[in-house]
């Protein structure tokens, strides 16, 4: 996978962990499956991927790390 795209996807994963999409689950759905379903979910999910990609793209050229706001180091178990 291309570095930009990968970075964007990673950011989406971060967002998913922050957003309580699965607040009622006791099962870890897995980031791969979550992201897949956001993409299958349609336009809104794709827009987010694009926005994050764009944010990551700009950050890359501005030479900044995209750590302006919330951060997490949550990893897959």
């Amino acid at each position, binding site marked *: *996978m291309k570095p930009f795209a*990968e970075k964007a*996807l*990673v*950011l989406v*994963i*971060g*967002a*998913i*962990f*922050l*957003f309580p*999409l*699965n607040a*009622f*689950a*006791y*099962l870890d*759905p*897995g*980031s*791969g*499956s*979550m*992201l*897949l*379903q*956001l*993409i*299958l*979910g*349609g336009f*809104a*999910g794709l*827009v*987010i991927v694009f*926005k*994050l990609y764009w944010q990551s793209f700009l950050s890359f050229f501005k030479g900044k*790390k*995209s*750590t*302006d*706001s*919330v*951060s*997490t*180091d*949550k*990893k*897959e178990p």
Partner: protein
Amino acid sequence: MSSQLPIPVPGSFRDPSGRVYQLENEIFRTVSLEFSSEFEFVESTGFFDKACREKLLLSFDKVTPDWFAAMWPEVKYVLKAPMLPMVSFPYEWPFLALKEAALLHLKLQLMALDFEVTLSDASAYNVQFQGSQAIFIDHLSFRQYREGEIWVGHRQFCEQFLLPLLMRAFFGITPNAWYRGGQEGITATDFKRLLGWRHYLNINVLTHIVLPASLQRSTLDKSLSLEKGSLAQAGLPKSSFKRMLQKLYKWIEPLAPADTGKTVWKDYAHNHSYSTEEVEIKKQFIAEFVREAKPGILWDLGCNTGDYSVAAMEAGAGYVVGLDFDLGALDLAFSRSKESHLPFQVLFMDAANPSPNQGWKGTERQSLASRAKGNALIALALIHHLAISRNIPLEDALDWLMSLAPMGVIEFVPKEDAMVKKLLSCREDIFPFYTEESCLTFIRSKGKVIKTVKTSQSGRLLIWYSRT
């Protein structure tokens, strides 16, 4: 009040919304105060009624046993469900049984969505069998569906149902040993490594295996940072959720094992060394035994495609659990059970390596022997495979068989028989004690020989034993 207290069932600890207990021959599932509003919601939708009526979900009664308030103050409800004749685990299921369970799970999830209900996980261990009928047993897996939420169980469904099925359907590899070893199924990451280029042309493979595995991989070992942004607008609309389930259903339904050639035993019924007359003698003896023993549950060890299981059921056996190590034969036995709606459940078992106690603390999944509730057993044409193919001392093999049921029929296959000759044809005969006499002497030392019958010219002997 009952003199005994309910005992927690091992393996029910993962879900904090309730636990399962056994008291004598009844199963009780508690619903915690914390989870009760979810349970009440699902109940109010009428989903439980429909799913139970259609026999997709194990029926239950809400009860208030007099001992429960004192014992479980944190419990709001107690559900009583019937005991199943034989609890089994996905690594013991032949292909067709696992497929049946997968389709049941998808059907239930689809039905649930119509009631604004969803499943909180996709564990294959929540499915059990009554004959060949898959049935969902965990009433607390259901909760309210929230518009836009994803299918939380997708990854687990793929690991525990889809990928083990594809292992056999794509590559002809039986997944049972792998499944038993890892307990949780097969991960997309592992499975992806097995795929060839032509598999990448399949959109379902890309969607459910390649893409999730790649995305999962890309998220490992990364520190993440982000503004929350407009994620609230994202999610999986219900229509997409349903479409995903329907597509999976359509993909799984026609799957068949790739190894459709001969397996060891499924051709046995036609190619073995018996004459029809011998088969008839065997069937008559089994029928006589069953009529006398009247077993509620009979175990047929080495059941092959189920000929003698069927003979036993025709003679009045209430429920037959057929065990065999040939998965091809078991699929035929499963189809037979399904087509005729027989009380006949088939499970994969290598008698020389039966399912052990395993999982958390070594108690989560019980061994085959500790689940043995059979009132009787038949073990035809099995003993020579244990004693000669696997070098298990004859007495040990007989002792194990007799420990599984208080009475039964064991077939002794002598060295003069063609099948044993074949087993010994390429190896030294190191079995001087493998004789009919030793067999009978041992059985008599552990119980009684009620009756015997010779079934072949070669000297095969059916031995009806009783431990008391």
